[in-house]
């Protein structure tokens, strides 16, 4: 069953702008991971943030985690047309071990 919910469901921005996507989840987690999926393609692992971490960076990506609010955000800075994709968060919960449950996803369109 899906653990997370992402918001917004769809986001359209101009190239060069920043894109922020949010993920909320229901139960305590071990870690949270963000993925990108280009249309019709497989999932690409972007970043993992552990439950004891609050922020992580990877290139133009910045992920935050607020366990008190059970939420995470993914910020893509200086967006490019190639960033157009669907973005998903996935959580590994404490009571399910290494099984991951995916959020509903955010469809991002970056307009050149």
């Amino acid at each position, binding site marked *: 069953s899906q653990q997370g919910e992402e918001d917004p469901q769809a986001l359209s921005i101009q190239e060069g702008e920043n894109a922020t996507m949010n993920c909320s989840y229901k139960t305590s987690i071990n870690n949270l991971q963000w993925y990108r999926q280009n249309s019709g393609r*497989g*999932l690409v*692992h972007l970043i993992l943030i552990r439950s004891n971490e609050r922020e992580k960076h990877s290139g133009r990506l910045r992920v935050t985690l607020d366990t008190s609010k059970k939420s995470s955000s993914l910020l893509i800075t200086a967006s490019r047309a190639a960033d157009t994709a669907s973005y998903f968060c996935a959580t590994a919960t404490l009571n399910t071990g290494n099984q991951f449950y*995916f959020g509903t996803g955010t469809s991002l369109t970056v307009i050149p």
Partner: protein
Amino acid sequence: SAVISQKPSRDICQRGTSLTIQCQVDSQVTMMFWYRQQPGQSLTLIATANQGSEATYESGFVIDKFPISRPNLTFSTLTVSNMSPEDSSIYLCSVLRGTGSYEQYFGPGTRLTVT
């Protein structure tokens, strides 16, 4: 990261038939997972495939419909049995890598269309 391949990459099948999807990993892994992604939807976990034991199925998925094999630590198969159009989806296998907190890596997926 992990190099994961799936076969076939896509298939169009008749209602009532079965399709077996293969997943091959470039190195040994303890746990492999099978997901389904219906058109325009997120991923739903079907089952966890552990080598040497029966797969563990998520609620709503049963072994008779989705039998899974895991003969060794680098390979698994998922069969979609007695297919109906509702089974049209992308099927993905995944593995975990790392220690402590695991990163999950996915195969490219198998796009199944049932007519």
